[in-house]
């Protein structure tokens, strides 16, 4: 079954793209964190094609723990983050989705130009890694609050790590990367908790 999963790369590629769109478009923090968790699941799935199962499981567990930590910190802010006029919310979403589409096209352009030509790496893994890194950068660029920027940073890291663990698949690397993800979740939650409630309520943008 693991072999079948490892060889099916289309589903995680599409899954990563859909999770990325939710991460960017939604204003609800809980949905964004659920999308991040989904993204982690698909990244772990994709990792099975070039990493041992145990490494993939570590990655999955780390992702779920990271998402759980972010979820805990966001519970109190959920209500305020959904405020704002309906029209504004819709135009904001449309803008983000269009930007995401453009970034994905650009990522495909980078992929098809074979700029990063890594021998032995599956095309879909490379495409997903570039897509993740690009959408992470987009999210960092267009967000204003700590949590979405932090999730963008985590997405960027996921993309990079997919490339890098292919190049250097060692236990130490996987362990250190897991530590970085958990520590990032901790510090993002902390920074988010520093946000005065009044400023969140008054802030119409993410």
């Amino acid at each position, binding site marked *: 079954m693991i072999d079948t999963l490892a060889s099916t790369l289309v589903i995680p590629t599409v899954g990563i793209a859909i999770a990325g769109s939710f991460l960017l478009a939604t204003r609800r923090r809980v949905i964004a964190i659920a999308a991040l968790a989904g993204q982690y699941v698909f990244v772990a799935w994709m990792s099975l094609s070039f990493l041992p199962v145990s490494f993939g499981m570590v990655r999955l567990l780390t992702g779920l723990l990271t998402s759980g930590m972010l979820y805990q910190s966001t519970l109190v802010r959920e209500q305020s983050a959904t405020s704002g006029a309906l029209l504004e919310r819709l135009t904001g979403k449309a803008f983000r989705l269009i930007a995401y589409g453009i970034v994905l096209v650009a990522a495909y352009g980078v992929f098809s130009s074979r700029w990063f030509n890594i021998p032995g790496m599956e095309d879909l893994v490379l495409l997903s890694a570039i897509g993740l890194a690009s959408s992470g950068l987009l999210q960092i660029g267009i967000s204003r609050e700590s949590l979405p920027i932090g999730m963008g940073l985590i997405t960027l890291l996921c993309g990079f790590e997919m490339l890098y663990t292919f190049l250097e698949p*060692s236990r130490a690397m996987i362990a250190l990367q897991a530590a*970085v993800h958990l520590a*990032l979740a901790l*510090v993002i939650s902390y920074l988010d908790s520093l946000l005065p409630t009044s400023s969140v309520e008054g802030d119409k943008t993410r």
Partner: protein
Amino acid sequence: MNVPLMMMAITLLVALTAFLFRKRAHVSAWMAAGGTFLLGLLVLVVPLEEAFDLAILQVRFDNEFVLLGRSLLLDEPARGFIGFLFLLAGVLLASSTYSKTNRFFSPLIVLLSAILAAAMMMKPFLYAAILMELAAIVAVLVLAAPEYPARRAGMRLLFVYTLAMMAILLAGWLLGVVGVTGATPEIARWTAALLALGFAVLMAIPPFHYWLSVAADESHPYVVVTLLLFMQTVGVFFLLRFLDTYEWFRIQSSTYDAMRFIGIGMGWFGAFMMLGQVRMTRVLAYALIMDMGVVLMAASMADQQGLELMMQFTAARVPAVVLWAMNLTSFIRVVGDDTHAKLTGAAHRHRWRSLFLLLGMVLAFGVPFSPVFPGRWVMVQHFASTDLLVLATMFAMWIISGSVVLRWYRILHAESAGNQALVGREAEFYLSCILLGTTFLVGMFPQLVLPWMEGIVQGLSNLIP
């Protein structure tokens, strides 16, 4: 006994103790300072890899700890670097006693020292980049506190360090696994670009210093200075390690040319940015950027003397900068903030604070009898015959720094209401005297301390055969 493991365990114990006493900031800071200072001495004096008798026991200190197939190796250069790092942490923590930083400052700085020490011992050296990312995460926890919610600065710091980690990991992989030679110009270009990005972040080279200006506004000045000193110091160590480890990087003349031009740029940038600031924390931050420019210009000498000067500057600036930062935070506590408006005329009421602050500034800028002056004068003599642009930059930095000191002297001594002097001295006064004395002592007798710092580079056997 395993020294790296013992060192990590003791550091964590010190951090835990400082954490338990966090509500009594003075106690926490002094304990952390004492712990890190002792660790620094321990790292420097412990005999490695040789058995000796201790009472009835025969003891041997191993210098390598293996974990998950990778090792923490306390070799000679790492030993000097780590010893210096812990001593630096000790000085910064002791001086933070009266700076009213946040209550997690001491334990987190100890933890940060442990992570940075691990980064310097890491083999393969490439993995240190990930530890630097972890260090940046701890740095954010120090930077942002409930009373100083430096969210923007924290996120910016995280972002740039994540970029640096990715760049250094990829560059290290290209250098170590793919192999960069003269026959692979495309890979060489990529590697150079990635390394430039990585080191630009680690040394806060503009424009990758952009977290710093926000941090200077949002966070506690002493915290900003502490982090900048730590991160830039580790950046210097990383640069030396990279030069020592990777031959391609070391033998390229363009590496040293790039350092010289970046150093010149940083010198001018830092100097001009200091001129127009209305907050003194920003002046201090830009002074440290300017200082790093001097360090890079020294490195560009591409010889043993240049490398020794790098280490000398890294150490010699510490007492003056700490004196400046400590008295600045002291001022902020009594006048409210560090802006031009609040500090106007403040010297009349707070004479000794003003005196120490201005002396800290003057000495940090490298005037005669300051610890950095002998090294800077060596550079002037060297570049007088080889590169007039560097020479002009050095003199311009002195002139502009002098005008910055004069400007702040006039601000502090301007006429304002309620100019009667306050009597009474606090503990900070005595701490400032000690720092000032140390600064003058090192400035007048540089042979006491600086050869030890210069000696650290001797362990880099590829760099200095």
